C-alpha cells in the first residue's frame, strides 16, 4: 500500500527527518510511536505532500507520489487527519463533509454518520463550536468522505477524555474492518497498542525500532528510551 523509502525532510534549514523508511501493507494498522517532537507529524505531512521531503521516495500502491501536491495525494486515496484537528470552523458539520472531494462512491455522509452517530445529531452546528471529541470525529469523517484506501491518523486521541478515547478506538477498528489501511501516530502508547499490529518507533527524526506489537512489548530498552513506559 504505502512505501516510504529513506526520506529526509526539512523545515527551511532545519533537518527534521533522517532517512525515515516505513511501509504499510493493505489492511494493516501500523503505529508510528514517539514522544513530543520526535517527527511523527512531519512524517505524516511528508507522506501527504504538505511538507515534501528533499530526498527519498514515497510510493502508494507502487506509484511514486513523492512531492506531489496534497490534493492529488488525497485524490489517489490518502486521507489525512492532522493532529491539530483543523475542522473548517466557519462551516456546519454537514458542510465540512460536503465540500470534500469525493473520489469514489464507497463513503458518503450517511455512512460517516453511521460510524459516528453523535455527529449526525449536530449536523447543522458550526464546526468551530464542537467539543474536542466531536471535532476529532469530524476530521476523521471528513477524510473518509474521499473513500480513502490509506488513512493517516495523527494522534487522534490527543487531549481526549479516557471514555471518549475508548469510543474512538472502537470506531477506528471499524475503519480497519472496512478495509482501510491505517498509519497511526501516537504518544499514547497504551491506546495505540490496542489498535495496531505492527509499530515503528521514531525519535529525533530517525526510526529506532520496527517490529510487531509482541516484539515491542518484549523490548524494554526501546520502551524505556524512546517511549518512556
Amino acid at each position, binding site marked *: 500500500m504505502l512505501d516510504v523509502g529513506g526520506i529526509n525532510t526539512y523545515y527551511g534549514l532545519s533537518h527534521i527527518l533522517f532517512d525515515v523508511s516505513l511501509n504499510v501493507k493493505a489492511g494493516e494498522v501500523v503505529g508510528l510511536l514517539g514522544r513530543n517532537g520526535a517527527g511523527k507529524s512531519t512524517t505524516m505531512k511528508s507522506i501527504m505532500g*504538505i511538507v515534501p521531503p528533499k530526498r527519498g521516495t514515497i510510493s502508494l500502491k507502487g506509484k511514486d507520489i513523492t512531492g506531489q501536491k496534497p*490534493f492529488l495525494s488525497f*485524490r489517489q486515496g490518502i486521507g489525512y487527519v492532522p493532529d491539530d484537528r483543523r475542522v473548517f470552523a*466557519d*462551516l456546519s458539520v454537514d458542510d465540512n463533509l460536503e*465540500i470534500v472531494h469525493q473520489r469514489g462512491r464507497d463513503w458518503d455522509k450517511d455512512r460517516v454518520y453511521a460510524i459516528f452517530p453523535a455527529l449526525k445529531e449536530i449536523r447543522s452546528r458550526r464546526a468551530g463550536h464542537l467539543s474536542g471529541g466531536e471535532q476529532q470525529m469530524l476530521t476523521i469523517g471528513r477524510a473518509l*468522505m474521499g473513500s480513502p484506501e490509506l488513512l493517516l491518523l495523527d494522534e487522534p486521541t490527543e487531549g481526549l477524555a479516557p471514555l471518549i478515547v475508548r469510543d474512538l478506538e472502537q470506531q477506528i477498528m471499524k475503519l480497519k474492518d472496512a478495509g482501510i489501511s491505517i498509519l497511526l501516530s501516537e504518544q499514547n502508547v497504551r491506546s495505540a497498542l490496542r489498535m495496531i499490529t505492527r509499530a515503528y518507533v521514531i525519535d529525533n527524526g530517525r526510526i529506532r525500532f520496527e517490529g510487531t506489537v509482541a516484539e515491542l512489548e518484549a523490548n524494554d530498552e526501546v520502551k524505556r528510551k524512546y517511549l518512556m513506559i
Partner: protein
Amino acid sequence: MENVLGFISPGILSQILVGLSRTVILFIVSSGLSLILGVLRIPNVAHGSLYMIGAFMAYTVSHLFGGGTTGFWVALILAPLGVAALSFVAERSLFQFLYEREHLMLLLLTFALSLVFGDLVKLIWGAEYRSVPVPSMFQGYINLFGGLPFPIYSFFLLVMGPVIAILLWLLTNKTKIGKISRAAAVDREMVGAVGINVNWVFAIVFVIGCLLAGLGGVLVAPTVSVTLGMDHTLIMEAFLIVIMGGLGNVWGALLGALIFGLTQSLGILIWPQFGIVFPYCAVVVVLIFRPTGILRSTW
C-alpha cells in the same frame, strides 16, 4: 427649511436616497475587493482599474448597440464579463505563480497591474471624457412617498444593491464553491488536504471579485463622466470601506459602504464646502472604537 421640527424635508430625503444609490456602487466594488482580500489574501490595488475598465467597456458596448436602452442592458452583461475575462487571464498568467510567495510580491504585482491597466485604457480609449447616456427607460423621475421626485436611475441602483447582496449571500452560503472559499479563507492547506485544488478555487474567487468591480464600473457609468483617473478616489474609498467593515468580510463591506455613503451625502447637506471630509471622519471614529473593523475579519 419648513419641516425643521420632526420631519425630514423631501429635499433632504431625496439627497439621502441619492447618496444611498451611490452607496450601492461602493458596496458592489468593495464587496469584490473584500472577497479577494479574504480568500486569496491579496490587497488588489488594481481593483479600481478594473472598475474603470468596466466603465469604459460599458461606453464601447453601449455605443456599439446603438447607445439606447438595449445598449445599456447588453453593456450591463458584457462589460462585467469582459472585466472577468481580463482578470482571469491576469490570474492564470501571473497571480497563480505567486500564491506561495510573500504577500508583498502579490501587492507589488497588483500595483504594477494598476499602472499597466491605466496605460491600456489610455491606449484604447484615450484621455478624453466619455459619457454613457442613461438609458431612456431610466430617464426622468418617479414620485416617491407621494410627491418626492426621485431619479429613476438612482432608484434602479437602489434595487440593484439588495439584489447583489442577496446573490452574494447565496454564493457564499449556499454554493459549494462559496463554502469551499470560506474554508480556504481560514485554512487553505487543509482545504488542499481534502482533495480540493485550491489553485482553481482562487482563480474562481478572484474572477468573481473582479467581475464585481466591472459591474460597479458599468453601473456608475451613466452617472459620471467616464475618464482616466476615475479609479483613483474609488480604490481609496473601497479600501477604507473594507478596512472599516473588517478585512475579508463581505457583509462588513456592506456596512462600511452604507456608513461611507451616508456620511458623505449627509455631510454635503450639513456643511457643503467640507462635506467630503465626513466619511473620512467616520472611518477614523469607527477604527478608534473597533480597530479591526466592525465585523469579524477573516485575517
